[in-house]
């Protein structure tokens, strides 16, 4: 059994490598090569990459259908998760929820793709409470993948800031900073510096945050907005809110829910 699995994995490798190179070079053939690799090896991560490469951003429906077909033939958590994301892009929330169920049922999900899909689905529900509850329950788990943990921590930091729990927000930000430098942590530490009157701290992290203003525009706007709201700087917050609505309306709408009830304790 393992021998067959290994032989399939070995046979799929050349197509995976070629597909990744084509993807790097933005060649249309990337999707096909990755799809061949997926069909030979059946590796979920390759399937997800293939669907992403095959996806036409203007028409995600086709890629979503492909994901549905693939999930019926060879269910993998990663393929289900990307199918769910595409379903959300198509506005098909029920199908996305179905993908989530199938993704969970498919088993191994080393990258936590189903957790990410679940977070995205919860974030798009009108009830901000259910999203918070999900973040809270995820924050109690110790087996999350790093990218899910990062999102959860960012959410908790933002919630701490909005609730005026600057020390908690700082503790989370400093922990995160040991691992990676994120625009969210930079904004939190800037806000903490401003709040305490620590100019050196505020200046340092303002510069850090500004460095990400272009490369991570939506995240920069979002975390900047929360930081300004936490400091009670309404004018700057409104300006950022307007910019965020322009850059990422969905994220702006999601943030509106959070800003509407900032006091709930989390994590």
């Amino acid at each position, binding site marked *: 059994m393992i021998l067959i699995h290994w032989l399939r994995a070995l046979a799929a490798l050349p197509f995976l490598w070629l597909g990744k190179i084509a993807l790097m070079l933005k060649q249309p053939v990337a999707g096909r090569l990755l799809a061949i690799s997926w069909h030979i090896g059946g590796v979920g991560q390759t399937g997800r990459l293939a669907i992403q490469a095959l996806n036409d951003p203007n028409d995600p429906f086709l890629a979503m259908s492909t994901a549905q077909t693939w999930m019926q033939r060879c269910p993998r958590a990663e393929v289900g998760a990307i199918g769910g994301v595409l379903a959300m892009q198509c506005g098909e929330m029920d199908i996305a929820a179905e993908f989530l169920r199938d993704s969970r049922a498919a088993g191994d999900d*080393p990258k936590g793709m189903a957790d990410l899909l679940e977070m995205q689905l919860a974030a798009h529900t009108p009830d901000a409470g259910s999203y918070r509850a999900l973040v809270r329950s995820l924050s109690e788990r110790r087996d999350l993948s790093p990218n899910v943990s990062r999102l959860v921590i960012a959410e908790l930091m933002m919630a701490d800031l909005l609730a005026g729990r600057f020390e908690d927000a700082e503790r989370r930000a400093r922990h995160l900073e040991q691992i990676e430098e994120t625009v969210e942590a930079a904004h939190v530490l800037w806000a903490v510096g401003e709040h305490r009157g620590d100019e050196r701290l505020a200046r340092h992290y303002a510069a850090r945050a500004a460095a990400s203003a272009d490369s991570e525009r939506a995240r920069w706007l979002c975390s900047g907005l929360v930081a300004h709201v936490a400091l009670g700087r309404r004018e700057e917050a409104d300006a950022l809110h307007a910019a965020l609505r322009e850059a990422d309306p969905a994220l702006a709408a999601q943030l509106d829910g959070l800003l509407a009830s900032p006091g709930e304790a989390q994590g």
Partner: protein
Amino acid sequence: MNLNLALLMLPGLAIGLTAHEFAHAWVASLLGDGYPRRNKRVTLNPLRHMTPLGTLMILFAPFGWARPVEVNLHNLKHPKRGFVLVSLAGPMANVVVVGVCWLLMHLTQHSSAAGPWGHWPSNTLAILHAVLFGAALLNVILAVVNLLPIPPLDGSKMWLVLMPGKSITAAGKKGAVLIIPLIILMVSGALRPAIDYVTDKVAAVMPVLDRVRYEQHVKLGVEAMGAKDHAAADAHYTMALEMSGHDPMLWVLRSTARFQSGELDASLADAAHALEMIQGRPFAADVRARVERDASVNIHNVHFSRGMAALDSDATLGAAVEHFTKAIHALPASNGAFFMRAAARCRQGRWAEALPDADRAIEIAPENAEYYAQRAEIHAALGNAQRAAADRAKARSLGADIDTPAQSPTAQPPDRG
């Protein structure tokens, strides 16, 4: 790589890579990260850690690799410290594997005593020792290479401690450029001397199976004999015999080495012991024949040497005759011993007793001019002028200068070898 060698190395490498990755996952798990457990990496099942390509490379290239363990640093209370501990756990696990190999080899090194007829019984144990030895060396290499402070190797994680203020990800990105020097180091073989140094040191302290040590000493003894270093050969044979004294041929070999070193008593004792060993024992015919032949040659040579030494003085001519008699007894076809015993008897004036020895020497080696000259002198002393003249004529025809004395008590002994 040789396929047999690769197959011998495969268990060691599989154990090393599995232990290495398991240790990363286990330590991360101990520090509070449940992510490796979720990915089923906190296990000693090699199939969970090996990758198809990495395993294939083990068989066809001088290296291999396993699937790296992903750790969620967000779950660690102290991410930097935790990351260093998790990273060092891998090489430390390889050091533990080396220790376990050493212990197993140490516990079993004396367990395969030689059988009653000199045969080492356990091939399985010898193979197991070879596998353990290979595993130890491979794990040393894994530990040493992984401790190099070059990304993505585990040793590079130490930098994170030395770079305060930098996040793990940022430090990792900065260090990523060093992957190129690492590849150059690996491909060019520049790392080889350092790795060889460490593996040599470890190899020197690994316990060796008695059987292997025995074979090594025998081999070194034979090589020392070839290099005419007879004392060293004696020492190696002695060490081999201390481990197993059941091979009569080894006693013969030491007897030869000791004869060449001038230790005649010891040589005689070894040869006699070898002959005694084969009496009534079920050795193969060819082994028996070889032992009998070589031991007899050694006994002959010892007595011949002693006989020659005894010829130095008229007072010890009797002893010389006795030694040559023993040499003849050991090797009845020794023309040299007959010739020399005849010479000793001539000097004693026992011409009539010398004649049969001279006859026998000529019978064994009819083309030796000296033998005819000696017999001519004996015949002359016994008053057989006609026979003496005939022997002189024969000696001349074979190239002897008949004016020189026909025999000499200081004549050279035959080949001792």
